[in-house]
């Protein structure tokens, strides 16, 4: 099946999700407010810390605001297109509803990952991008077409890393029935990704750079915007993103083989 057909299906699903979401407007606004508030909390934290110190791990106040903004942008983008679907996977497996996905003439991994779309998260992501713009203005950074291109590429790598890690985690529910706790645990990892990587030392830094690359997801794109591109880390980020994506695809297919279908 061609790429354009997949794109068409994806767009149709997004349209479906939009219609569905607009049926519950109050709920939509409430969750939008909730996410915005949590983002504000991160910014308040930065303000409080920089009320006492001038820089942290070589990051000035507005550089840190940029990092928090970039992290929010990437995280919300991931949340908008994929994350809500992953939350549903354990339930689909447990109840046997995954059968419906398997019966379609498209890749099951594609359907499982893209079925639902969360428009609120996209709005929140844009808010993150707005905060980035605010920080960029304050820092007096110049934006070049090359910089924008690089930022888009790195955003893609960041989303790919989140996608692969969380999908690998939920794929475990093919073998473990109660895996909901694992997924909520992923929220804790998000908290690492908005911290400057230079603050971490030793083994912990190695783990969060290479094994669970949270310290790359938002740090590398932010550093690229700041004109401090670290080409080695950029390569590592792209390489790990691709590697993890392939490994997760393999794991997901193994999981499907273990799937016994609980229904009927």
């Amino acid at each position, binding site marked *: 099946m061609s790429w354009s057909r997949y794109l068409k299906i994806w767009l149709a699903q997004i349209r479906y999700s939009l219609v569905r979401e607009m049926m519950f407007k109050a709920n939509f606004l*409430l969750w939008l407010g*909730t996410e915005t508030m949590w983002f504000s909390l991160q910014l308040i934290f930065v303000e409080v*810390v920089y009320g006492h110190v001038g820089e942290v791990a070589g990051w000035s106040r507005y550089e840190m605001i940029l990092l928090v903004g970039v992290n929010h942008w990437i995280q919300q983008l991931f949340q908008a297109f994929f994350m809500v679907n992953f939350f549903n996977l354990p339930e689909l497996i447990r109840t046997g509803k995954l059968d419906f996905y398997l019966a379609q003439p498209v890749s099951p991994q594609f359907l499982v990952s893209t079925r639902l779309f969360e428009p609120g998260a996209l709005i929140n992501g844009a808010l993150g991008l707005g905060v980035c713009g605010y920080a960029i203005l304050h820092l007096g950074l110049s934006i070049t077409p090359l910089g924008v291109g690089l930022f888009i590429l790195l955003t893609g790598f960041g989303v790919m890393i989140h996608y692969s890690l969380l999908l690998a985690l939920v794929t475990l529910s093919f073998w473990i029935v109660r895996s909901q706790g694992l997924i909520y645990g992923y929220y804790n990892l998000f908290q690492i990704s908005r911290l400057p990587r230079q603050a971490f030392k030793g083994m912990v830094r190695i783990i969060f750079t290479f094994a669970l690359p949270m310290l790359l997801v938002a740090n590398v794109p932010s550093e690229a915007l700041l004109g401090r591109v670290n080409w080695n880390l950029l390569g590592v980020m792209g390489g790990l993103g691709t590697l993890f994506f392939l490994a997760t695809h393999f794991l997901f297919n193994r999981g499907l083989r273990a799937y016994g279908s609980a229904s009927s």
Partner: protein
Amino acid sequence: MLKRYWHVFLIGFQNALVYRWNFLLRCCFSLVPLLGTIFFWGAIYQGKGNVGGYSYEGMISYFVALLVLDALTSPTEDDFQIAADIREGMMNQVLLKPVNYGAYRLALYFSGRMVYAMSTIVPVGVAVFWLRSRLNWPKEIDVWLLTILAVLGSGFLQFAITFCTGLLAFWLLDVGGVIFILFGLEYVAGGHVFPLNLLPQPLYQVALHLPFAYEYYFPIAVFGGQLSEAELWRGFLLQWLWIGLMSGLGWATWRQGLKKYTAVGG
């Protein structure tokens, strides 16, 4: 009378045991942000002896004390369970029995905390042991006694707030949004993200008058032994005042809610 709730406690204890692995996992995952906190504050203290009146050791002690406090008092699913009781009509069973729903939930809250504390003793113990050289322990026995009192107060207050939010399910279909907004407020205004006295003075004063400070910041400040005698007594007074207010609010909400309750299903 008390025996009744003792049985609720025992049943709740057995029920909660089912979730012991979940609790353990949850606690292990919560060590990840702690790791981030330790390194991030380490970077903040680079070349600095003191930030906002805290030494690096003082700051780390604060967050480790928070970890222990959470393990002892943090409600896990209580609000969602109350909401589910209402939505799914499970409340009918309780209404038909001579029990007070508030006391019934309180007994379940205690049993849940007991199992949670037991299941998480290993990860919390490991964290405390790993950081032992950086922690400031109080030496005076009365500081320990006051801490126990403040932690108990924190537990009652967290329960009362949770009870009120769960009861909103009488009016709202999905209480999740409200719970997460409140959770965010508790986190920042309660001192879960940073010690409240790092705030600019006017904001700090505002925070001290809100209930959230008495959930996390106050018990830890008591443990840290950094409060003057006047601050200590004022703190306890406000903590128990808020417990009273929130319990009253819970009672009123319950009375109003019952009028709306339609006992679906069950």
